[in-house]
Each structure stands twice: as structure tokens, then as C-alpha cells.
């Protein structure tokens, strides 16, 4: 059963830049799906089409009826209401999503991320990493039907990356489906059950990790990436100092 299905999605920016070319895939219920691709491959355009901030040129985005209004998007840019405190932002999200946010849960999660002291300060005083942590805490409190994350690990320290992965796994077990975009291919490999690789707006491979590794005769996703993207720049970089 899928929570989101994309059918032949096209996005052409004026005058004729093809950002997405007939993209089709599904996100399964209670799965963690990752999308990987180089810069300019169309990942962010795809996410923007899904969250409705831009309109696709053609194609369909079909939502599970129950989930249509129950998804949370965590953008890569740390745009947050700077004049609210971290705690207030979490409460605001709770009210917006009609979910009861318990003070006890806020305290527990902020302790896990070691930001309990900063929670009552305005977000304008937060560092980049702290803003990311608040966003991850928000997704754990809201427990949306579908959680969409753009570069969730960027700006986080090693400990926080591990914590984030654990929390995302926990969210999955508690019933959420997760769709994330990241350049951190090893984290995607560890966390995701399904992976989509995208290049210049085209999906080059899609499926479970094992299926992708087997079909490309590779030991890890990085190897698949090098094989599929046949990137001369990588080869040139390997030769540069030799």
C-alpha cells in the first residue's frame, strides 16, 4: 500500500529547462524512502512539487486520502520564525496540526538533543545545528502520516546524526512514512528501505537497497552511484594527484 504515488511527473521551467522528466514512483506505507542525486538533478523541484509550493507542468501526484493533509515538510533552509522560542515553535506546530504536544515529550526530546536550556530562548539566538535539531524534534512530536525531509543531516554533529537516524527509525515504527533527500549516501544506505536515484530530472534506478545492489553488482550505494552516473569528474579527481 502506498501513501504517495507520482505518475509521469514533468516540470519544465521557462523557457525550456527540463527539471523533471516523466518521474514515477511510490512511497510505501511505513517505509523510509531516500532520494539521491547530484546537484541540479531535480531533487528539490520534486520535493517542491510534492509539498505544493510549485506546480508541476504535467503528471499526477496521488495522495492517500487520509494522509492528504497530514504531512510535515522539513526544508533544508533553516527558515524558522526567529522571534518565537524553540518551545513556542513546537507548540505552534502542534496547534497548526491539531496535535496535542506534551511538555513532558518536549523536555525528553530536547534533553536527548542537549538543547533543553536553549528551548526558552528565541530561535534567532540558535546556531544552524540547533535549528535543525528543533525541526527534528518537531517531526517527532507531530508524528505526521508522511514526513518529508530535505537534507536532514546537514549541519548536525556526529552524535546528533546518529540520534536523528534512531528517531527517524522510531517514527517509522510508530506508523509514519518518511521520504528524505540527502547527499549523505552512507546514511541513506543505513536508514532507508527504498532508494531512488535521480539524474538530470530522470529516475535512473528505484527500488529496495538489496535490489539496487544486486542489479548493479555492487557492494554499497556509493559504488552504484559511481557506476550509474559515470561521472568523469570523479575519475579525474582520483587521478589528479597521481
Amino acid at each position, binding site marked *: 500500500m502506498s501513501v504517495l504515488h507520482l505518475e509521469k511527473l514533468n516540470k519544465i521551467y521557462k523557457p525550456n529547462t527540463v527539471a523533471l522528466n516523466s518521474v514515477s514512483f511510490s512511497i510505501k506505507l511505513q517505509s523510509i524512502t531516500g532520494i539521491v542525486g547530484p546537484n541540479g538533478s531535480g531533487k528539490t523541484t520534486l520535493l517542491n512539487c510534492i509539498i*505544493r509550493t510549485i506546480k508541476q507542468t504535467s503528471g499526477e501526484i496521488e495522495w492517500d486520502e487520509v494522509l492528504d493533509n497530514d504531512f510535515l515538510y522539513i526544508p533544508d533552509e533553516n527558515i524558522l520564525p526567529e522571534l518565537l522560542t524553540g518551545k513556542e515553535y513546537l507548540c505552534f506546530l502542534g496547534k497548526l496540526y491539531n496535535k496535542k504536544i506534551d511538555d513532558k515529550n518536549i523536555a525528553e526530546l530536547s534533553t536527548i538533543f542537549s538543547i533543553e536550556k536553549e528551548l526558552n530562548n528565541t530561535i534567532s539566538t540558535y546556531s544552524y545545528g540547533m535549528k535543525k535539531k528543533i525541526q527534528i524534534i518537531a517531526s517527532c512530536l507531530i508524528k505526521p502520516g508522511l514526513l518529508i525531509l530535505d537534507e536532514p543531516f546537514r549541519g548536525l554533529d556526529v552524535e546528533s546524526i546518529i540520534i536523528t537516524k534512531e528517531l527517524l527509525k522510531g517514527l517509522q515504527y510508530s506508523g509514519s512514512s518518511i521520504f528524505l533527500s540527502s547527499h549523505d549516501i552512507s546514511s541513506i544506505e543505513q536508514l532507508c528501505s527504498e532508494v531512488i536515484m535521480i539524474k538530470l530530472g530522470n529516475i535512473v534506478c528505484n527500488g529496495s537497497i538489496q535490489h539496487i545492489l544486486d542489479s548493479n553488482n555492487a557492494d554499497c550505494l556509493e559504488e552504484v552511484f559511481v557506476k550509474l552516473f559515470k561521472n568523469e569528474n570523479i575519475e579525474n579527481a582520483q587521478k589528479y594527484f597521481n
Partner: protein
Amino acid sequence: MTNSNKLFLASKLVIILNYRDLKKFIKSNLFYLSIAAIIGLMFLSLSSLVITKTLSPILQFSFSSDINENKYVLLKSFGVSISILSSISFLVKKLICGNFSKHTKMLKMYGVSNLKISIISRCGTIVIIDLILSILILILFFPSIYTLDVDFKFKLLFVFSLLLQSIFFLIFLDLVDRIIIGFLIKIQAPFITVFSKIFFIVIFASMFYCIFKYKIIENHIFNPSFLISSIIFPSVDNVSKMYAGEIISFLFLAIIILLSILLNFIDLSFEECFTLPVILKKLPFINGDFCMLTKTIKETFRNAEFISNYIITTLLILILYIFKPSLYTNGIFIYMILFPVSTFLYSFSYENSVHFLYITRKINTIKIFITSTLSSFLISTISIVILLQLFVYSNFNINYYELIIDGFLCGSIFILLGVVFPINKYNAKSSTIMVILLILLIIPIGIVYSQLLTYFELSSNVIFLIKLICSIILLLSGFLSFKQKYIIKE
């Protein structure tokens, strides 16, 4: 690389970055900017017509007579008007843009010295404001000077003296501003952004009080255009007095410019070590989509710009109340509502950070607009009611109907402006455009409005109705612009 090369390279970099930013901004706001330009030009032309019609006979009379004293007095009054125009412009810039400079940090990272950064930013600010002022001066005053039956060289010299006066006054105000900031940094004061504004306004108000009370501006000091007057009018009665005035004027001018140059050597950049207290922490969020209302209220009361503008309003009212109680007719209350209502200029920028949430939650645009507008009206009303408490035990008869409709009208104007060019400290372009718009629109609209009132002699009921209709049209335009700006992009 030589030092001068480095300065030019840094200036070039800042100009390129600003040019690109501006180009992008104009491209994405072309429609709104075109409309603003058309309205601005319309009001500027109308006020130019009004001024030409009123001034031309006086100017012609003064210049056709052989008495140089008349021309001299005229130049004085022009100098005073230009000084007031420059002060209003600098004040609008100070209140809206605060002290943030986008490229300062970047230039520091590249190792550009404080002196160079200071010179670049000073020149930038003064050039921009002076360009706007030049447009104002040329459109408002040049037609009346141009129609005069005098030598063309003289006309050019006359306009040049006005421009010189505006440049001088801007340098002077900038110097006052920098001395205040330097002082606050030196004493390690908290909340420099807020206090620098408050100190500036207090010094600015007292300075203007002294200038007008003791007629300083009419006696050479503060008025370098008098230096040019010696070229224009070589023989005026009471020559010795005038020469003495010129020497004082020249000395004063030299001191101001020297101090302004010297101050560039001092690093006046600062990082706020203190943050404003978190106000309304305990205010609970309303359930459902209207939690946006609580959010905007909390954000407004924590906005340093709003807080400082509000304190300034209260201080100005108190200063005027103590020193000039005769000013308190009904008209003065319009200034009282202007600052609290300025919250509308900021309120729509708060939504940018959570706009994607509203889209994902499929919240209706009208709901977002109404909530933002409602919260701003609520905040303005509370702020004005608090200010009115200052007059509870006074003898002033406040016309509440007029106060309400003026508040509603100002609010509607600021809603439209706030939707189109939302202000926040991360959006310097929008703030700059807002400063330009306010300077170019407020003065001509004021001139045309007062002229219309005297020309048509309308009853207060008709004025009330016209203001109400205008407010509704402005609110609707605000909503349509909001819908257009926040619609899902193709």
C-alpha cells in the same frame, strides 16, 4: 595589492553584489514597482504643480525686484525646507533599516579594513538618500525655479546650492548617529539597536527645537548654501554681518566634514550581546489555524524595530507635551498613530518563515491575510490606547472618530506596503525600497491632500466617507497582492 586598489576592489564587489540583488528584486517585483512608480510620479507631478502655482508668483516677485535682501531671504527659506526634507529622509531610513549592513561581515572576512568598510557604507547611504532627495528637489522645486525670468546659470547655481545643503545635512545627521553608536559601544550599553534609535530621536528633536527656537538655520550655521549665496549675491545690505556668518558657516562645515572623515578610523560595528527579553512568553496559542494570530502578536512585541519605534513615539509625545503643549490640536494625533501602525510593515514578513507550512496544511489565503491583518490592528489599537492614557487627565478634546478613521487609513496603506515589500532584517532590499517609497510618497501625498482639503472645503462627514472608501480599496488591493504573491508558482 596597494591599499587604494583594495578599496576600489571592495567597492566594486559591493556595487556588483548590490546591483545583482537589486536586479533580481526588481525582476521579481516589476509589477508592484511599476504601479508604485506610476502612483509616485502622479503625486509628485501633482504636488509639483501645487508648489509651482504657489511659489512662482513669490519667486518672480523676489527676483524681479532689485533688492538682494529678498533673494537672500528666499534662499534661506529654501535651505530650511531642504534641511527638513533631508532630516525626514534620514529619519525614515534610520527607523526602518536600523543599523544592519548585509555586506559588512563579508568584507571583513576578506580582510578589508574598518576604514574602507566605513567609507563604502557611508558613501552608499548618503548617495542613495541624496539621489532620492535630488529627485524630490528637482521634481518639486525645479519647475518653479525654471519658469523664473532670470539667467540660466543662476538657476543652476540655485539648484546646486539646494543639493549641497541636502548633502551637508545628511553628513551632519550621519555624524550625530555615529557619535551616538560610538558612545553606546564605548559604555558597553545593552540593546544598542534600540537605544541608538532612541538617543538619535531625542538629540534630533532637541537639535531641531534649538535650531528653530534660536533661528540657527537662518543665521548661516547649518546652512552651507550661504557660501554660494556670496557668489550669487555679491552685494547685500549689512555685508559685514553676512561675511561673519559665512566664516562661521565655513568653519562649522569644515569641522563636520573633518569629524566625519576621522570617525571612519574607528570601528563602529557591533554585535548585540544582549537580546530583548522574551515578552508574552506565557500567552497561550489559540487552537486551530488561528494560532497564527497568537504567533504574530508574540513576534510583533518582540520585534526590536517595533519596540524602539513605540518608545520613540511615547518620548516624542511627552517631549512635545511638556515643551510645546500648544501643538496639541487634533492634527497632531495623526503622528501618534503613525508609529504604532507601522507594525503592518513588518507583520507580513513574519509569515515568510512558515509559509510552506500553511501551503502543506492547505490553509486558505484569505484566512492567513485576515489573521495577519487582525493581529496587526489589535496590536496597533492596544498601542494607541496605551498612548492615549497620557492625555486622560489633560484638557485636550480628542476627536475619536477622526482618530479611528485615520488609524484605519494609515493601517490600510501600511498593509498594502507591508504585503508588497515585507520588511525584516534579513531583507535589506525590501527595506531600502520601503524607505525610498515612503520618502517619495509621503511628502507629495501630504501636499496634495492638504491642497485638496483647502480647495474643496469638504465637510467632516464627507472626508470620513472618502477616507473609509480609500481604506477599503487599499485593504482589498492588499489582499489581492497577498494572494498574488503567495500563490503556488507555475
